[in-house]
C-alpha cells in the first residue's frame, strides 16, 4: 500500500473528529487541523514510502482510564519514525502496543480500532504473539542485557527457536555485532559477561540481540535516555545504518535526537496524536500551536 502525503493528511483527519466525540477529563483544549501542505520533494518522496504498520483509530485503556484516544496514522517502511511528547502522553504505550508488550500488564486492552502490520490485525485472536514479537523486535529504555556472556545474549533468540548449530550461531553473533557497530569492541571477549560492558555498549548489545532474530521492525523505547552524549551519538549513528534494512520506531524525550535521527516525527499530547509530518517540517514549521510550544520548550 502506497500512501501519499495527501492520504497521510486524510488519515489524520478522523483523529480530530473522533476526539470531539469522546468525553475526557482533559482540561487543555486541543485543536486539531489537518497537517499542512507538503514541502520539499525529497520529503514527499520519503513520505510516499509503503506503509508497514497501519494504526487505525486506536483507543487504549489501562483498566478504566483511557490512555490513547483514537490514534490514527501509518508508519512507513524503512524509515525512522520518532514519537515525541511530554511524559505520560502515551507515546510509550503506543509503542508497546505495536508488539503487544502491553499484554503483560494486567487490565490493559485496546478499546477500539486496530493495528495492522503488513495488513494483518495484530490483535486478532488468530495471531501468535510469539511470531509477532520475532518480527517486531524491541529495545528498552534501560539496557537489559541478561547476566550471561555477550555471545549467549546474542544467540538467546536463536536458541529459543531451537537453533543450536555452532556455525550458524557464530555467524549470527558476528553479523549482529557488526550490525550494531559493536564487533570491533567486543570480538576478543565474546565469552565474558555482558554486564562488564559500559552502558552504551550494553544498549548496543541489546540492539544486536534484537537484530539477531532478524525482525522487520525495531521498536526503541527511549534507547539513549540512560546514556552519556558519546554513547548516544554511537547509538544514533547505528540507527542511521539500521534503517537501510529495518523499519525503526523510536520514542524519545530528546527533541534534538528526534531531529537528528528520524525521518518522520509524531507529536503526542495527553494520549492524542497532535501532529505527524516529516521531521524537518515538525521542527521548523509545525502546523499546530501545541507542537510549536513543545518544540520551543514552552512546556513539557
Amino acid at each position, binding site marked *: 500500500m502506497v500512501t501519499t502525503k495527501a492520504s497521510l493528511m486524510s488519515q489524520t483527519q478522523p483523529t480530530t473528529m473522533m476526539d470531539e466525540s469522546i468525553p475526557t477529563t482533559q482540561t487543555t483544549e486541543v485543536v486539531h487541523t489537518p497537517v499542512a501542505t507538503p514541502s520539499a520533494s525529497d520529503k514527499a518522496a520519503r513520505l510516499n514510502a509503503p506503509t508497514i504498520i497501519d494504526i487505525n483509530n486506536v483507543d487504549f485503556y489501562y483498566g478504566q482510564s483511557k490512555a490513547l484516544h483514537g490514534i490514527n496514522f501509518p508508519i512507513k517502511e524503512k524509515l525512522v519514525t520518532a514519537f515525541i511528547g511530554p511524559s505520560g502522553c502515551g507515546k510509550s504505550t503506543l509503542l508497546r502496543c505495536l*508488539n503487544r*508488550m502491553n499484554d*503483560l500488564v*494486567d487490565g490493559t486492552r485496546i478499546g477500539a480500532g486496530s493495528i495492522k502490520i503488513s495488513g494483518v490485525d495484530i490483535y486478532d485472536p488468530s495471531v501468535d504473539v*510469539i*511470531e509477532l*514479537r*520475532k518480527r517486531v*523486535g*524491541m529495545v*528498552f529504555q*534501560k539496557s*537489559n*542485557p*541478561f*547476566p550471561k556472556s555477550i555471545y549467549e545474549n546474542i544467540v*538467546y*533468540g536463536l536458541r*529459543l*527457536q531451537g537453533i543450536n548449530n555452532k556455525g550458524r550461531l557464530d555467524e549470527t553473533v558476528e553479523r549482529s555485532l557488526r550490525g550494531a557497530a559493536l564487533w570491533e569492541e567486543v570480538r576478543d571477549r565474546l565469552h565474558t559477561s555482558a*554486564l562488564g560492558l559500559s552502558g552504551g555498549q550494553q544498549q548496543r548489545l*541489546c540492539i544486536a*540481540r*534484537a537484530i539477531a*532474530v532478524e525482525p522487520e521492525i525495531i521498536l526503541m523505547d527511549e534507547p539513549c535516555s540512560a546514556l552519556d552524549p558519546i554513547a548516544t551519538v554511537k547509538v544514533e549513528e547505528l540507527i542511521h545504518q539500521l534503517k537501510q534494512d529495518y523499519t525503526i520506531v523510536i520514542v524519545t524525550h530528546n527533541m534534538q535526537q528526534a531531529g537528528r535521527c528520524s525521518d518522520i516525527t509524531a507529536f503526542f499530547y495527553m494520549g492524542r496524536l497532535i501532529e505527524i509530518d516529516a521531521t524537518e517540517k515538525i521542527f521548523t514549521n509545525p502546523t499546530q500551536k501545541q507542537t510549536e510550544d513543545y518544540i520551543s520548550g514552552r512546556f513539557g
Partner: protein
Amino acid sequence: MTARTHPFQRKTTVASYREAGVFWALRAFTYIILGFGVIIFSTIIYKGSPAVFGSERIDGTFPFLHNDFLFTKPQTLHVFKYKGEIKQMSAADYYTFVGQSPDASTPPPANPLTASPPSPVLSTTGINSSDITDHETYSYAAGGIWPQIVGTILLVIGSMAIALVLGIFSAIYLSEYSKQGPLISAIRLAIINLAGVPSIVFGLFGVGLFVLAFGWNISLMAGWFTLAFMVLPVIITASEESLRAVPKGFREGSLALGATKWQTVYLNVLPYALPGILTSSVLGIARVAGETAPILFTAAYATSDKLPWDLNISPDRLHSGFLGYLEYPFAWLHDFAFHGVNALPYHIYVVSSKIPQNEYTERVQYGTAFVFLLVVMMIALASVLLRIRLRSRLKW
C-alpha cells in the same frame, strides 16, 4: 555545677540522666538475653561434648570415624554394683560380662530334634549373679545416636525436595502467571497464615491424611509430606520474593525476542531467582530438622533400632526368576519409604522426658542436644557461605 565558660558548656540536666538511663537499660536487656544464650549453649557444650569427643573408638567399622556415640545404635544402660563397685555398661557389654544371651529371658525356640538343655543362668564367665546388686537400667542411655542422625538427614532431604518442588512451582504460578485479583490475594494470605500454624497441627494433619487416610502408617513417607507441608509457606513466600527481585527487564527482553512465557521463566527468571530461593530455604531446613511435633505421630519411632536400609525383603513377596530381580528395587524402595525412622529432635524429647535425669543419663541427653546443635550450626554456616558465594557471582 561548673561555671559557664563557653556557650557549648555541657550541663547536667534531667534529660541527660534520662539519656544515660535509657542507654544502660537497653544495654542491660540485650546483655541479659546474651547471657541466657551463653548459659544455654555452654551448658550443652560442656555436658554434651564429652559424649562425642570422649567416647570410645570403634575401630574397623565403616565409616571408620571411631566414635561410638555418633556411629552406633542406642542401647540400654545397665548400672549395677558388682562386689561393691559401681559399674556402667551398655546392654551388649553387660550380657557379655554376665555371659548371657541378650534375650535370655525369652530364649529362641530350639529345634526339638537337637534340643540342648536350657542355657545355664549362671554364666560361663564365672560371674555370680548374687554379686550384682542395685541393678538399674536406663533405656537409650548407652550406645550412640546413629539411627537418629540418619533419620534426621533422610527426613530433611526428602521433605525439602518435596517442599522445594511444590513451593517453587506454586511460587512461579503466583508471581509469573496468575492475574492479580481477590482470589490470588486470598490464596497468598492463606499461605502466609499457614506459616503461623503450630507444628503440632501439621502433625495432626499428617496423621489424619497420610497415616490414616492414605494408609501410609508411621513412615518416612508420611513424615516427608507432613514436614514438607509445614515448610511450604516459608518456601513459597521466599521463592515469590526471589522471583520478584529478578528485574522486569529480563522478562521483557526475553519476551521481546520471541520467547514463550515458560521459556522466559525457565531460561531467564528462575536461574537468577534460584540462589535466593535456596538461601532462604536453608532456614526451612533448620526448621524441618528441628521440629518434633510433626513427626511425633507420622514418622518417628523411639524404639526402632533398625536403620531404614536394614530391610528384610522376603523372597515370597517377589516373583521368582528374572521378574523378581526387576521387582526387587521397587520392593526395596517401597519398604524404605514406608519404614519409620528415628530423628534427633524426637530423641531429645524421648531421652529428656521418658527416662530419669541423673548422672547416668546425662551423657545421652546433652550429647544428643550437642550433636543437634552442631547439625543446625552447620546448616546455618552453609547458608551463610552459600549467600556470600552467590551474591558475589550474581549481580545486575
